[in-house]
Structures are given as structure tokens and as C-alpha cells.
């Protein structure tokens, strides 16, 4: 039967081609349908999904339009707690950064006495490093040299003096750009030899999207929800061994602090991971964009590089690693600038040459983002005029986030059917929701994944936009959602309250 079906398809295709050809003869041009269709396009791109901006967000945007047009709803605004965008939620930019950038944009303002001296000095230094003293000139593909030097110094200071070489620093268009670049270098092979990349479940969907686009094999390792989303070496080993049956595992990705789970890895855990990577000959990718977002008592950010070097030359001379940072999170929240960098450790020199080639194709990272990064790694010092304001602003942002993290965990845990792990760091909460069987059935009826169904209902009834846990990955049979803790505290309290009420209503409805 199957072969008959195939032949039928082929005949149909031939018939179509013949029809097209005769039409072509008639028209003199090809009535081809399109050159670029789902069938003819890059098959990998078709498989790409990115839940953070996926269907639920599209519906949210639609609802916003409807509200604007005066359609009556049980709410007056859509609260977009789906994306980690601090400024969109009202967080204020750091004054010092914006002042320097304004001067870089329009240097005539250097004459303006309203700007402090340290702001002017920084701006002048950045402009001098730019071609033609303008942020509008291309920079070298690897990024402006003096900025890479500043990044290296920042890393050294952060890591207690462990040397960092500016040649190993690559500025990028947000951390995402650098992550995809490294993956491009690492993914190769065919069939059973195809590169496998280990990523945590739940994970930030940039990774799964990039792996789909590159046609790499995604190897899932599960974080332990019962233990505050901690990483378990036994689980890593299980995942790796299973994967070896069908691919060539070469990369291990860690997000620390975690997205969406917010867990901050202990030092011991990081050592164990490094040891594992060395034993199993894996390239480590350490996504550390939330390194300043650590809230929980007893938690501390340990950079992978620092731990690596403290484990001695046996590790620090051999383990290959790339760590990533950006200007989009922490206390800056400057997502719209697309600033970031990666530091590569123990990268083969020939591979490095290929890396330089790869980054040169996209010319250079946006210069304003590079300038901003320079300020982030080189903030006002205690003896400088802008220091006091800077520290006040920075502390305010981070302490507010810490407070919201606590509040979120506290309130969600009072809701029967919602369990929430402590938000140790980053900007999100990923609570587990218990869904009544009837709701699960209803979702299946509608062709929706159960947590998508839940989130869609929340959006329609309360105007709150979250991302269903299925977009990040979760253990079979469990359901979650990811909510950012970014709305201003008062609004967040309202949101938490509304979700609480919704959950109770929803559970009641499907009981």
C-alpha cells in the first residue's frame, strides 16, 4: 500500500510539472508557484520554535490592539510577564551609562557643563577608540580592542586575579550571537557522528532553536525540581550515555544562574561539572548573563572560569570552554542595545582562526552595544563623581528584584496546586502547576498542550501573558509556566493575586 501511495504522489507531481511546463510555454514565463516554499526551503529552519515570542505573545499583541480599538475586556491592559525585558516593565536605565552614550552619540555635548567629568572622560576614551572618532564607524569584527582589554580586566578582577587575555574575548551582538557562533563551529558530522549538544531541561529556548537551525542533536538532561532545580551528575551521565547510541556528544551547555529556573549553582556543583566535562571530553558553554542577579541567602555566583583555574593546571590547561555575558540583564537591563561578549578558553589556535573568519562575515557587533559593555565592565570608581548615584541606582534595582523574588515564591506557595521553588537568581519563576485531568482532556480536544491551554485562558481572562512550561521543556506529565519578576512591585502583587484567583477558578471549573 505504501509504495502505491508513493507512486501516486510521484505521478501527481509529474502531472503538476507537466501542467506548469505547458503554462510556461503559453505565458512565456514560469507559472511555477513559488521558488521558495516550505518544501523547498531549508528544512532545519522549519523546525525552529521560540516560545518566548511564540503564539501566546502573538495573541497578547492582538488583544492589545483590540483594547486600543475599544473592545471591552475584563482588564484594561495586557501585562507582558513573558519576556525578560526590564525596561519594558518600567525599570529605569543607569544614569551614568546613558549619559556617556549620549555624549558618544553627539560629542558636542562634551562642552556641556551639566555632565560630570567622569562621564566626559569615559566618552572621550570610547570615541578615541572608534574609527574616525565616531560610533558610526565599523569596528574590527572581534570588537574594539580597548574595550576587549577592559572586559579582560573586569574578568580578572571578578575572578580574583586569574589572567584573562583580550585576544580570547569576542564582543558580540548580545550573548545569543556568540552562543550561536560557537555552536556553528562545534556542530558537524553526519548520522551517528552528528554533534550532540547537552542542554538542561528546562532550558532557555534560544538553545533548542539554534540546535534545530543547525541540525544538531539535542541531548536533554533534567534538572532536579525536588531539589531546587539542581544539576545532578548522575543525570548528566545518564543522558550522555543514552545519547552516545545515536550521536556524537561534544558540547555541554549550562546556564548559571539558570533560565527559566533561577537556580544558582554551588561551587561544588560547578567543580563536578568541570570534572565531568574533562572525563567525557566535552566542550563547556557557560551562559552567565545573569551573574549579578543572585538573591537567595547562601547563594553566590561562581564563574566557571574561576573554578576551572582553581582546580589546577590539569583542568585549566585542557578543558575547552566558552563563557558568555551580556548587557541585557543584571542591573542594566539594556536588551535593546544587543551588547555582549564571550571569553574562550583553551580553544585550538586553528579553530580560533576559523572563529575570526566566522565573526568577520557579519562585519562587526553594534558599536553602541560595545560602548555600553565597556561602561558595564568599567563602572564609576569610588573616587569618581558619578559613583554615589551609580551605586544607589544599582543597589536599588538588585534589591528590588530580590524582594520581588521572595514575594513571588511566597505568594505562589500559598496557592493549592501551585508549587514554587525559591527564585535564587535570574529574573524568572518557573512554578509547577497541577492541572485537573478534565482540563488536560479539554486541552487535548482543542489540540493544545495543557499548559498552553492554561496560559491562553489566563491571557483571555486576566490579560496576563506568561510562557507555558512546554516552551522550555519539562518532565513528561508535569506542567509549568514561566513568569518574569520584572513588573513593578505593586503591579507584581496584583499579578500574583490574579494568578492565584485564576488558578482556583480554573481548578474549580475542571474539577
Amino acid at each position: 500500500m505504501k509504495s502505491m501511495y508513493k507512486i501516486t504522489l510521484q505521478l501527481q507531481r509529474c502531472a503538476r510539472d507537466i501542467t506548469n511546463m505547458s503554462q510556461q510555454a503559453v505565458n512565456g514565463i514560469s507559472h511555477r508557484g513559488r521558488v521558495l516554499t516550505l518544501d523547498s526551503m531549508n528544512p532545519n529552519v522549519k523546525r525552529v520554535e521560540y516560545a518566548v515570542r511564540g503564539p501566546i505573545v502573538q495573541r497578547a499583541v492582538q488583544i492589545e490592539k483590540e483594547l486600543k480599538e475599544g473592545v471591552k475586556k475584563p482588564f484594561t491592559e495586557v501585562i507582558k510577564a513573558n519576556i525578560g525585558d526590564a525596561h519594558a516593565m518600567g525599570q529605569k536605565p543607569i544614569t551614568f551609562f546613558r549619559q556617556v552614550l549620549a555624549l558618544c552619540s553627539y560629542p558636542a555635548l562634551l562642552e556641556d557643563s551639566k555632565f560630570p567629568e567622569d562621564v566626559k572622560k569615559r566618552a572621550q576614551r570610547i570615541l578615541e577608540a572608534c574609527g574616525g572618532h565616531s560610533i558610526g564607524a565599523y569596528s574590527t569584527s572581534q570588537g574594539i580592542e580597548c574595550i576587549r582589554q577592559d572586559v579582560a580586566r573586569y574578568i580578572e578582577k571578578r575572578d580574583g586575579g586569574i589572567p584573562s587575555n583580550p585576544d580570547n574575548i569576542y564582543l558580540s551582538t548580545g550573548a545569543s550571537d556568540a552562543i550561536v557562533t560557537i555552536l556553528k563551529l562545534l556542530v558537524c558530522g553526519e548520522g551517528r557522528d552528528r554533534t550532540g549538544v547537552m542542554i538542561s531541561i528546562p532550558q532557555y529556548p534560544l538553545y533548542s532553536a539554534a540546535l534545530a537551525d543547525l541540525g544538531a542533536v539535542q541531548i536533554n538532561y533534567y534538572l532536579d525540581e525536588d531539589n531546587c532545580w539542581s544539576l545532578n551528575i548522575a543525570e548528566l551521565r545518564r543522558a550522555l550515555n543514552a545519547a552516545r547510541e545515536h550521536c556524537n556528544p561534544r558540547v555541554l551547555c549550562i546556564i548559571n544562574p539558570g533560565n527559566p529556573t533561577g537556580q544558582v549553582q554551588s561551587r561544588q556543583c560547578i567543580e563536578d561539572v568541570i570534572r565531568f566535562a574533562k572525563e567525557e571530553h566535552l566542550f563547556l558553554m557557560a551562559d552567565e548573563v545573569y551573574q549579578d542577579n543572585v538573591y537567595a541567602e547562601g547563594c553566590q555566583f561562581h564563574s566557571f572560569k574561576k573554578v576551572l583555574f582553581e582546580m589546577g593546571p590539569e583542568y585549566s590547561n585542557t578543558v575547552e570552554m566558552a563563557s558568555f555575558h551580556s548587557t541585557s540583564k543584571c542591573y542594566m537591563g539594556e536588551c535593546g542595545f544587543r551588547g555582549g561578549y564571550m571569553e574562550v578558553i583553551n580553544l585550538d589556535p586553528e579553530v580560533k582562526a576559523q572563529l575570526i573568519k566566522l565573526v568577520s562575515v557579519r562585519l562587526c557587533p553594534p558599536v553602541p552595544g560595545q560602548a555600553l559593555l565597556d561602561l558595564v565592565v568599567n563602572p564609576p570608581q569610588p573616587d569618581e563623581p558619578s559613583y554615589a548615584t551609580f551605586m544607589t541606582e544599582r543597589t536599588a534595582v538588585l534589591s528590588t528584584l530580590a524582594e520581588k523574588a521572595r514575594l513571588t515564591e511566597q505568594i505562589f506557595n500559598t496557592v493549592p496546586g501551585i508549587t514554587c521553588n525559591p527564585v535564587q537568581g535570574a529574573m524568572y519563576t518557573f512554578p509547577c502547576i497541577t492541572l485537573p485531568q478534565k482540563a488536560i482532556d479539554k486541552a487535548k480536544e482543542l489540540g493544545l498542550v495543557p499548559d498552553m491551554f492554561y496560559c491562553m485562558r489566563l491571557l483571555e481572562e486576566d490579560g496576563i501573558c506568561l510562557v507555558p512550561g512546554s516552551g522550555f521543556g519539562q518532565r513528561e506529565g508535569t506542567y509549568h509556566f514561566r513568569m518574569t519578576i520584572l513588573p513593578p512591585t505593586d503591579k507584581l502583587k496584583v499579578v500574583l493575586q490574579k494568578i492565584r484567583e485564576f488558578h482556583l477558578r480554573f481548578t474549580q471549573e475542571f474539577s
Partner: protein
Amino acid sequence: LNKKYPDVFFQGVKKPFKSVIDVSSGDPHKAGMPPISFIRQVMAVCLYPELLKEKSLPLDVRQRAQKLLDMCSGGSVGSYSTTSIGLPEVQKSISEFITRRDGGVLSHPEDIILTIGSQKGLSVFLNLLTSGEGKTQTGVLTPMPCPHTLPMLLDMTGLALVPYRLFEEQGWAVNLDELHRALEAGRVHCEPKAIYISNPGNPTGYVQDRETIEKVIRFAATNCLIILAEEVHQGSVYGQDKEFISYKKVLSEMGKTYAETMELVSFHSISTAYIGECGLRGGYMEVVNIDPAVKKCLNFTPSAPVLPQLALELSLNPPRPEDSSYNSYTQVRGLSYALEFLNRVEGMSCQPSMAGPFLYPRVHLPPHMVEEAKRLGVKADVLYCQRLLEEEGICVGAGCENGQEDKNYHIRHRYLLIDNKINQFHRSFCEAMLTG
């Protein structure tokens, strides 16, 4: 080339020149062209909104900045674009610009995708196109010479480069017979699915006339090719009696069958000769007649930075009093002077450039140079450029980077230099070649 050498100079090594003049890329700011004040002032206010109250800044600057900030989430240029394909108001503004430019041919905001520069935009679209291997590998007809980053981009995206020669004797025109020849040759080893057009040409500066554009469209339609039209230098056309016409406009006037079926993507950016904001990394692509299901895949485009979207908006809607006739005057003056000089030098000939930032002269290299190059294992035009850099501190681009494969050696350099620099540059440049 310029990536390796500048490092050497920072080490205090003695050279017969004080600093490197890099004219190998179309980067006006690097050469000293000042940015457009209005754009930079508005950007400064958007970056630091306290300046909205700054009376020393013109009122229209502050008003425009407020309008732009209102387009951003949370009123900040630091938030992500509301959609990954860009700020909706900027999409709308661009579509209105295109409609105006094309004399009323409608452009739709949802067909506009904001990019991180035209190169990145092209890369994203090419990634949709790429498929197959060996004989089924997707091919792209590519002009020779072409922008110097294009061959590498095609290679990295897994696409086959199918070269079609531009005719230097005709001012670097596109030749239909050559297109046919190239396509036939291409079909032997790959599956050509697209034709890349650079109009105005990069690096040649050639501006295609309506007749040429129509012929190319017909050729593409008959042969099932998508047109990728890079039209970045549309705003700097200065050749006598030359006018930029967009591929889309010509397409719209070729009748319903073409206008509603021909797949076309056009690229533009702020890295132009006029605006020159290359470092900001901003641009857009307009997709015409692209399959809606395929278009949806473009939603996964990496998000473009906000500041260049705003700069783009400003550049497409400039305020009247700021029309820089001064700038274009300087450009024209610079160009004809440079052209004259180049054509007077023994061993150099240069086709008049009609648009864009580059001059692309042919250099007749002495046989001893060609032999030396062979001995050293480098291409002769690369050796020439290396010598020029070492001896005069001037960095130009070698024609082979633009795909020039034959024995007709060329160099690529930007002519856009401010007045006093031109004298300096050309004197040493031409001296170098006479002694070369």
C-alpha cells in the same frame, strides 16, 4: 587585510608615514566624514531623555526624540523591540518611505523586517534558501565583482556561488547573454534558485537603467530565480542623467502576472555613503511575494538593536532644513577630482562611478610584480595592496576580495574623503604607483 596590519603600527615601529589611512571599506566616518548632526542629536536625547528639557538643543530635535521614545516599550531604547522583526511604527514609517519613493506603489508594514545591517539581513534570508548538497545544492547567481564579504557569506551558509561577470567595458553593466551563460554553467553543478543584484553596484557604482532591470526580472522569472536586490546605495546617485529606480517599482509596472508572482527581496541599510552609520548596524529588508508560511519563519530573526531602527527612521524622514546639499556637494567634488587623478596615472584606469562610496580602478601591474606575487604565494592584487600599506600607510581593498578572478587586477577604495585629505592621499598614492 586591514585586520592584521593595524596591530603592527601600534607597536611604535618606525614607518615613512604617521597613520594608516584605511579606505578599503565603504565607511565614511572612519575617513573623517562627520555624522549628520540632526540624527546624532535626536539619538543623544533618546539615549538620555533628561535632554528633552535641554533648551540648547533645537526644538524639532527634542520633539522627534519624544515621538521615537513613544515607539519604544517602557519609553526606553534599552528594551527589546515589541516584535522580533522590529518596532511596528518604524516598519510603518519604512513602508511609507518606500511607497513615496516608488511613486505610490504600495508597500506593507508587515513585509518589512528590521535587520542588524543588510549583511545580516541577507544572511538570515539566505539561510531560509539553503538546502541540498552536491548537485542539489542551492546556488545563487552572484555578480563579479561583488561586495567583498559576499563570497564568504554564501560559503558559510552552504550556498553555491554562481558567478556572472559584469562588463567593465560597458561601465560594469549587467549583460543578459552573460546571465544565461552563467546560469547554464551553474546548473551543471548546483541548483540555482536566486540571483543577487547590487544596484547601485558595490563596488562598481554602476546604476542599472529601467531596461536592464526589466530584462533581469524577465530572466529571473523565466528561470525560477528569486531576486535578492541589495539597494543600499540608492541614496547616493550622482552620475550625470542617472536615476535610481527600485526593482520593486519596475516590477510593479510589468503587469499583474509578474507583479503578483515574482519573488523579490530588497535590502537597505544606514551604512550608506550619505548617512554612514555603519557601526550602528541597522537596516531593513522588504519581502515581496514571499510565501506566507516561509515568511513566518522570519519571525525567528535575531532581534535588531533599537537605536539603529530609530536612526533609520530619521534617515528616511529627514527634516527639510537639514537636507545636506553641502554633503552631496563635497561628495561630487571629491569624486570627480579623484576620478580625474586616477585616470591620469600611468597604469591605472577607472570607469566613472555613478553611485555609492567606492571607486574600482583597474591597475595594470608590471610583470615583475606578478612574478613576485607568484613566488610569495599571494594574489598579485593582494601583494600590491600590501606594498601600498607598508610603504604609504594606505589601506585599500584587493579586487580578488570582490571576486575578481581574472588577470585584470583591480583595487577597491572609498573616494569619500574630506578635501584636505584627498590631496595627501592621491599624491602619495600616485607616487607610490609611479615608483611601484
